[in-house]
């Protein structure tokens, strides 16, 4: 058995173990413990840490750090991640890797101190101007958060792409058992600036053949879509209703599905772990006679729901109604989800798609 650790601290430690060279960030609840922990832990481990003047500045620090080939991490929440978006899209243009943790707080604008899932669209669609995608991974336990942060640095380097860990305040603040992977010491990547002009004019944004770059971007996204879909599925083969939920709601709904199946109800769950790429392959094992798809999110209107409907169509379930259970903010209560599920089954709720 591992130690009881708070989600935010566990993710900070996982980054150290994954060989992170530098952290740049600005505090915001409920993500601050990631940086508070790294403020001393990075130094202890011989790594670097900078507290920036704001999240935007932190992201341009990340951009610089990536350009010399370091493993770099930033963490924030909601509107803090909004401030970073110009830097994020510059990094996409340069094909630079980095890991960005969003410990999501619920709401628009300043948002709230409640946990939430209101940032799904921004994270899965890129967030800044242009046409790029970040790989987005979402854990539902502290252990999974550790494992995904550890993996995120490798994926980020493999595809030269930002990887977002999209988690929620509830998970960042939660204490759970977890075991850490071993500490890695990773050298700076050799494709990066070394001061010697080894790689010529790279990345040269003004002078590239834009068509060729666009085609390459497409190839990269297709490759990631093919290789990096991750999910957990229970009971979908015979399910009359398949529930979709990620992160903390994913965990709640797993419990609900487990209980219902014990009572003999034909219900299943798909818990996406990669939100981009969305795990469309998960549809391949779903019962062809399924009656409905239901997305449960701690958001006001269905954000992931749109992806569920989109990939349902792609996978031949175009006529299956897609419902939404809106459960903002915090952690969805089982009773509330069950009541809404019953109402859907009773035909009292209109499908969204």
């Amino acid at each position, binding site marked *: 058995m591992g130690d009881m650790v708070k989600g935010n601290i566990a993710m900070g430690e996982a980054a150290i173990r994954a060989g992170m*060279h*530098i952290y*740049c960030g600005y505090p915001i609840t409920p993500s601050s413990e990631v940086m508070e922990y790294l403020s001393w832990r990075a130094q202890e481990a011989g790594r*670097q840490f*900078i507290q*920036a*003047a*704001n999240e*935007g*500045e*932190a*992201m*341009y*620090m*990340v*951009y*610089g*750090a990536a*350009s*010399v080939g*370091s493993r*770099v991490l930033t963490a924030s929440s909601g509107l803090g991640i909004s401030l970073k978006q*110009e*830097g994020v899209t*510059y990094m996409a243009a*340069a094909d630079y890797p980095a890991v960005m943790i969003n410990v999501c707080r619920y709401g628009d604008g300043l948002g709230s101190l409640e946990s939430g899932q209101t940032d799904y669209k921004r994270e899965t669609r890129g967030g800044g101007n242009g046409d790029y995608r970040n790989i987005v991974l979402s854990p539902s336990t502290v252990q999974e958060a550790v494992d995904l942060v550890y993996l995120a640095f490798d994926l980020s380097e493999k595809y030269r792409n930002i990887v977002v860990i999209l988690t929620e305040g509830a998970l960042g603040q939660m204490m759970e058992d977890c075991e850490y992977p071993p500490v890695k010491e990773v050298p*700076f990547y050799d494709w990066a*600036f*070394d*001061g*010697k*002009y080894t790689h010529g*004019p790279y*990345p*040269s*944004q*003004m*002078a590239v053949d834009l068509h060729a770059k666009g085609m390459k971007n497409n190839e990269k996204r297709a490759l990631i879509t093919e290789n990096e879909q991750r999910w957990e599925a229970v009971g979908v083969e015979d399910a009359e209703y398949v529930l979709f939920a990620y992160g903390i709601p994913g965990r709640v709904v797993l419990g609900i599905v487990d209980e219902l199946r014990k009572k003999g109800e034909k219900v299943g769950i798909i818990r996406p772990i990669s939100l981009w790429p969305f795990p469309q392959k998960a549809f391949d094992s779903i019962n062809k006679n399924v009656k409905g798809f239901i997305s449960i999110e701690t958001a006001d209107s269905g954000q992931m729901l749109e992806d569920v409907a989109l990939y349902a169509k792609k996978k031949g379930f175009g006529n299956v109604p897609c419902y939404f259970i809106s459960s903002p903010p915090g952690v969805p209560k089982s009773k509330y989800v069950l009541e809404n599920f019953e109402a859907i089954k009773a035909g009292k709720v209109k499908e969204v798609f």
Partner: protein
Amino acid sequence: MAKGKKAPEKILRQVPFCPGCGHGIIVRLVMECIEELGYNDNVLIGKPVGCASLLDNNLAVDTFTGAHGRNGASMTTIKRLKPDMLVVSYQGDGDCYNIGFSETMNAAYRNEKFTVIAVNNGNFGMTGGQMAWTSMPGQKTSTSVNGRNVELSGMPIRVPEMIAHSFDTAYVARGALFTPAEINKTKSYIKKAMQAQIDGVGHSLVEVLSPCPTNWGLTPLASMERIVNELVPYFPLGEIKNKGGK
């Protein structure tokens, strides 16, 4: 006959600035200093967004494509992760003092050990000559067509003085290009600024008063005269701060 001087090896070709533009001279001085200090193969230049975006592909050194105004932040991590590399942030005044004011000041505030070259041409050259915080009172630009009204937009900004007097940095100076003697002085400031970085003394910044004949609507010669008569009285030349080497 005037003696010709060989161009620095790392300048691949002439950067296509407008005729009479100060950028070309400043880039040349920067590259000469890098070469003379022996850093041709251990240097990174932060490229801004502005006319100096044209540096792309014309210099055979690592050139970081910065976001508009944000190189104060990006050069911070580059220098911290590569402390032996000479890191030079080449920025226009709009980039460095308008949109990038926060990043510029915060890097100086933290005394980050890289060198800023800030090209003060009193407008946003690249985008058609809009007003910059450095534009002079009454100066006509494409966003102050009746002349800059300082009642509404503030007096021209003097960032070098702010940094020199407020923060614990190593070296701050302001140079100009209107005579060969001034060009040589400016070069000596740039070199001392780089030396302060190499010696690990701290942050350094050199502002250069630079003509933009295209957007000023003046000939190259008249542009130089404007610098002498209108700009130098407000933007005094010389070393503002020199903490000295180690």
